[in-house]
């Protein structure tokens, strides 16, 4: 049948990752946001704190500068007389990290040369070298310079113009080791990283939990869909959140409508069969009582018409149903029903019909009438040819269900096994039957993605091996 292929295998619920998992996308997005905002917050807080500490240090240096300026006593030449005493003991301890220095500026407004006039003890033998710049009176400049012992220093400078000798400007320099800033900043960074790390972990955990809770209905929906697909349910069951429920209702409605359409198609096919075959019966019977050429023609054509009607009706019914999701038919009750039928119909011959092995849990992923159609035709065939015994076995192997029907009849030569599947082929032209049974079985089995093969039976007759999707 062109255009119609077994679709049982490619209707699976899309596996996670096919289009990317919704959960993963949401989770990655959330985590990226959490990370980005915490990084920005951490960086901002760090900057703020560093600026704060720097400003504090600058203020402290400014205070010291004022003290230095106040303690400065100049001689008549405008040179500092003696070392001014500042209160902070760090100005005395060598390389303590807190320094002052007084330079002379030779030419006002322009820095031609400089010489340190006085230095704090803490500088020991080092001299602070100040970048060349020009300062207006009273202006404060902040610099970063390298100090003694390789210390990175934060330095402020101011030009002082003594009242006595205004042309003899002095440059007052206060410097502090930047470690005084870095140490508290580093400490804060440590605390900040820890705190923000804990916060990030907490937020990420919350995001995971929220996603899991939020997406739980989707997981439920997926399970319900799988159940429908495998035929365990005929509709999606349960209540879902209002965002999903309309989808579920719509899907269920489509499923129900599908089933209804199939049912109607079957009924119509049946009605058509009834409407056609009764007149065919009348024609055949009328012709049977006559020996003429016309009667012969009628009998022949009625037989042909019957074959065609049977075949196309079976096909129409099957095509309507195969691949419809949500169908699952337990195997054993169908087999037992058919065996009751065969037992009665073949009662005369005293055939032994046995189910040798068929677990009650085995089920076919498909429609009950289609299963009956396949098994009925195969059983009918087996009973027709069997001498005394027909045996039935069913097994499941993963996704597949196997039904084996053995008879102890005359068997079928290997060369003839394929030919009997042709439409209208009959191994015995005198045995009753339309010769359609096996063709229909094959058509149905293939619609469901299964197969049918005839083999040699251990009972010496024919074994029909039917493979179907397991439900």
């Amino acid at each position, binding site marked *: 049948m062109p255009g119609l292929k077994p679709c049982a295998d490619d209707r699976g619920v899309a596996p996670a990752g096919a289009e990317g998992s919704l959960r993963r996308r949401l989770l990655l997005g959330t985590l990226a946001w959490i990370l980005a905002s915490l990084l920005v917050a951490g960086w901002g807080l760090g900057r703020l704190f560093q600026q704060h500490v720097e400003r504090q240090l600058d203020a402290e240096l400014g205070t010291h500068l004022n003290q230095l300026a106040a303690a400065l006593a100049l001689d008549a030449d405008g040179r500092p007389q003696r070392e001014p005493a500042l209160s902070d003991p760090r100005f005395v301890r060598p390389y303590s990290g807190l320094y002052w220095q007084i330079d002379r500026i030779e030419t006002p407004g322009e820095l031609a040369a400089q010489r340190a006039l006085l230095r704090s003890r803490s500088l020991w033998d080092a001299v602070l070298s100040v970048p060349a710049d020009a300062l207006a009176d009273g202006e404060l400049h902040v610099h970063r310079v390298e100090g003694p012992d390789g210390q990175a220093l934060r330095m402020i400078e101011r030009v002082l113009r003594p009242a006595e000798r205004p042309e003899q400007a002095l440059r007052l320099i206060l410097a502090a080791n930047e470690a005084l800033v870095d140490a508290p900043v580093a400490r804060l960074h440590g605390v900040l990283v820890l705190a923000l790390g804990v916060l990030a972990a907490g937020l990420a955990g919350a995001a995971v939990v929220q996603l899991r809770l939020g997406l739980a209905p989707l997981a439920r929906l997926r399970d319900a869909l799988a159940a429908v697909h495998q035929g365990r349910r005929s509709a999606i069951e349960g209540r879902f959140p209002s965002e999903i429920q309309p989808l579920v209702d719509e899907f269920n409605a489509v499923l129900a409508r599908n089933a209804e359409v199939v049912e109607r198609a079957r009924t119509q096919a*049946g009605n058509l069969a009834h409407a056609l*075959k*009764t007149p*065919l019966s*009348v024609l055949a*019977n009328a012709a049977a009582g006559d020996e003429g050429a016309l009667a012969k023609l009628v009998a022949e054509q009625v037989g042909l018409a019957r074959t065609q009607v049977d075949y196309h009706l079976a096909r129409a019914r099957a095509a309507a149903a195969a691949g419809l999701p949500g169908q699952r038919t337990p195997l054993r009750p169908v087999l037992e029903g058919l065996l009751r*039928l065969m037992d009665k119909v073949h009662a005369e011959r005293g055939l032994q019909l046995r189910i040798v092995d068929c677990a009650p849990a085995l089920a076919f992923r498909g429609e009950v009438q289609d299963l*009956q159609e396949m098994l*009925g035709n195969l059983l009918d065939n087996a009973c027709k040819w069997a001498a005394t015994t027909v045996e039935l076995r069913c097994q499941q192997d993963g996704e597949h269900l196997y039904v084996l029907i053995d008879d102890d009849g005359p068997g079928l030569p290997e060369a003839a096994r394929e030919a009997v599947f042709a439409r209208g082929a009959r191994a015995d032209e005198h045995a009753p039957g339309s010769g359609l049974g096996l063709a229909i079985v094959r058509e149905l089995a293939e619609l469901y993605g299964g197969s049918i093969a005839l083999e040699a039976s251990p009972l010496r007759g024919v074994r029909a091996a039917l493979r179907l999707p397991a439900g």
Partner: protein
Amino acid sequence: MRILVVEDEPTLAVQLDRALTAAGYAVDLADNGRDACHLGEQEPFDAVVLDIGLPLMDGISVLKRWRAAGRTMPVLILTARGEWHEKVAGIDAGADDYLTKPFHMEELLARLRALIRRAAGQASAELRCGPLVLDTRGGRAMVAGQALALTSHELRVLSYLMHHPGEVVSRTTLTEHIYAQDYDRDSNTIEVFVARLRKKLPPGLIETVRGLGYRLSCPD
């Protein structure tokens, strides 16, 4: 032997009536489920040919009603749809065999004969009683290989007795089984048929059981 044919298609019903009558059966016709149901419950039939698709009441329901009412006559169902679930439903409702339309009349006759024989506990298609042989397939009676010339009514009486050997069969029973319902019945005519049969058969085969009826007694 009396057969009920339930078929709503008039031409097919007539064909069945004709073929069955020609084969020596008394035939009653019903063209809807409700009539069929009443007839089957009230009249003693030896077999029923029952179409499944019927107006007023479908064949399966009719059959279930009969079986529920304890009617055990063999029933052959005719199905037009040819679906297995319908056949299984028919058998589970109590049918004994099925035929799919369109069918060959010979096949229907053969199945019907087999059903009637089986219902009477007879295994062979040829019923024997001493020198007397009834070939159910051909509807012929023979004594020592010589075919007997019997009218259809004589054949029906003999056939019923042959299907129930050793049983006492009342005149009423015989009447019910050789005449269709709308036939002008007269149980006295049974005596006439039996008397004619006795003349054609070896003596002593048909006994009269006083006040009860007749019995076919077969010498071993």
